[in-house]
C-alpha cells in the first residue's frame, strides 16, 4: 500500500463518474435528446427560409448547447452530497480543486462530448455546410468546458439549498454570456465573411482563464456549502 499521485486520483475520479453515467445512460441521453429537440424545433417553427435559417443557426445551436449544459449541471454535486461521498472528497489529501477538475472533465465527457459530435449533423437542418460545421465544432469544444467550469462554481455555491437547480442557472447564465457571444460569433463570422479566428482565440483565452481559476473557486464554494 503506497501513496497515490494526483494523476492517479484524477484517473480514478474520471473513471468513476464516467462509469456511473454509463450505468445510468438515460440521464445522458435525456440531455442529448433535449439538445437535438430544441435545435430541431427552430427550422420547423421558422419555416424553410434558407437565408433566415443560416442567419439564426449559430445562435440557436449555441443557446441550445448552453441550456443542455445547465440541465446537466444540476447533477454535478448533488448526488455525491446526498450519499456522503462529497465529505470524503473534501478530506482527500490531494487539493480539492483537482477533485472538482476531475468531476468537470468527466461531466464534459459524458454530457458535452456527445452533444459536440451531434451538433454538425443537426446544423445541416439550417443549411450550414462547408467549413461552418467545423468552426461550430471547434467553438463548442472550446466553449462547453468554460460553461461547465463556471457552472461548477454556481453548482457548488447553491449546494443543499432549496431550488438549487434554477438558482444555479440564474447565477451561471449571465456569466456565460461572453462564451455565448464569442462562440456564436465565431460561427456567424464564418457564415457571413469566412473569418472566425478572432472569436475562437477569445474563446480559447476564456477557456484558459476558466481552467486556471474556476476549480479553485468551486473548491472554496464547496467547503463553504458543506460547513
Amino acid at each position, binding site marked *: 500500500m503506497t*501513496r497515490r499521485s494526483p494523476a492517479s*486520483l484524477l484517473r480514478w475520479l474520471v473513471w468513476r463518474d464516467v462509469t456511473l453515467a454509463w450505468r445510468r445512460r438515460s440521464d445522458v441521453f435525456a440531455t442529448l435528446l433535449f439538445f437535438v429537440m430544441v435545435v430541431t424545433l427552430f427550422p420547423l417553427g421558422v419555416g424553410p427560409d434558407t437565408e433566415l435559417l443560416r442567419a439564426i443557426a449559430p445562435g440557436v445551436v449555441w443557446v441550445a448547447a448552453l441550456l443542455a449544459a445547465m440541465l446537466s449541471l444540476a447533477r454535478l454535486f448533488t448526488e455525491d452530497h446526498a*450519499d456522503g*461521498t462529497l465529505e*470524503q472528497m473534501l*478530506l*482527500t*489529501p*490531494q487539493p480539492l480543486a483537482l477533485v472538482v477538475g476531475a468531476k468537470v472533465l468527466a461531466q464534459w465527457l459524458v454530457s458535452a462530448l456527445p452533444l459536440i459530435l451531434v451538433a454538425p449533423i443537426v446544423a445541416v437542418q439550417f443549411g450550414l455546410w462547408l467549413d461552418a460545421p467545423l468552426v461550430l465544432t471547434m467553438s463548442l469544444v472550446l466553449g462547453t468546458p468554460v460553461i461547465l467550469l463556471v457552472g461548477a462554481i454556481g453548482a457548488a455555491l447553491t449546494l443543499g439549498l432549496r431550488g438549487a437547480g434554477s438558482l444555479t442557472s440564474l447565477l451561471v447564465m449571465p456569466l456565460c454570456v461572453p462564451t455565448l457571444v464569442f462562440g456564436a460569433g465565431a460561427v456567424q463570422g464564418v457564415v457571413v465573411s469566412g473569418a472566425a479566428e478572432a472569436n475562437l482565440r477569445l474563446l480559447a483565452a476564456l477557456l484558459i482563464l476558466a481552467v486556471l481559476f474556476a476549480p479553485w473557486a468551486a473548491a472554496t464554494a464547496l467547503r463553504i456549502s458543506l460547513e
Partner: protein
Amino acid sequence: MLEARDLECVRGQRQLFAPVSFVTQPGDCYEVKGPNGSGKTSLLRMLCGLLPPTRGEVLWRGAPVSERREEYRAAITYVGHRPSVKQELTALENLLVSTALSGWDVSRHAARTALARLGLKGLEDMPGRRLSEGQQRRVALARLVACPTPVWFLDEVQAALDDTATRVITEVIEEHLADGGVAVIATHQPLDFVRHLSCRIELAA
C-alpha cells in the same frame, strides 16, 4: 498526537457544546457520548476539518491542522453516518474509489481481503443498490481495514450492523489501538464493546 483545544460550536444562535479539550496518545480510544442533537457529529466534523470551530483549534503533532492540512488529511479516516456507497458501482469498485480518495493505492487483492474481513466475501461484485443498509455500511467500514491511517473518526459506528459485524469492527478497532492508532467514536448507544476505552467526552443536550 491529536489535540483539541477549547473547541466550541455555535450553530445559529445556539451553543451546541461547551468548550471541549483533550489530548490523545497513541492507542487512545475516545468515546463521544450525548443525546440526539448534542453535537456529536458536529464535533467529529470539526475534528476532521470539515467544519471550522467557532472557537478553539485542533492540533496535529503539536501544530494547528490549518498549517499542515495535507499531512493531517493523509493521517485521518472519517466514516460518517451516511455510507457514501454508490448504487451503480459494485462493492469492490466502491471500496477502490474511496481508498483512492483517501490517497492510498490499494490493490484489488487487498481490497477483496478487506471486504472479506467485514463478511462481504462473495458480494464483491454486487452493485451497491442490491446491498442492504448494513452491508453498505460494511463496505464503508472496509476502508478502515484497507487504509491504515493512524487516526479514525467514526460516527455511529454500530448503526445498522448485526452482531457478527459489530464483533468484527470491534476487533478491527482494537487491533488499530494496539498498533498505536487513535479512534474517536461518536455514539448514543453504550460502547462497552471496545475494552480499553480511554476516555469519554460527554456532550450535554
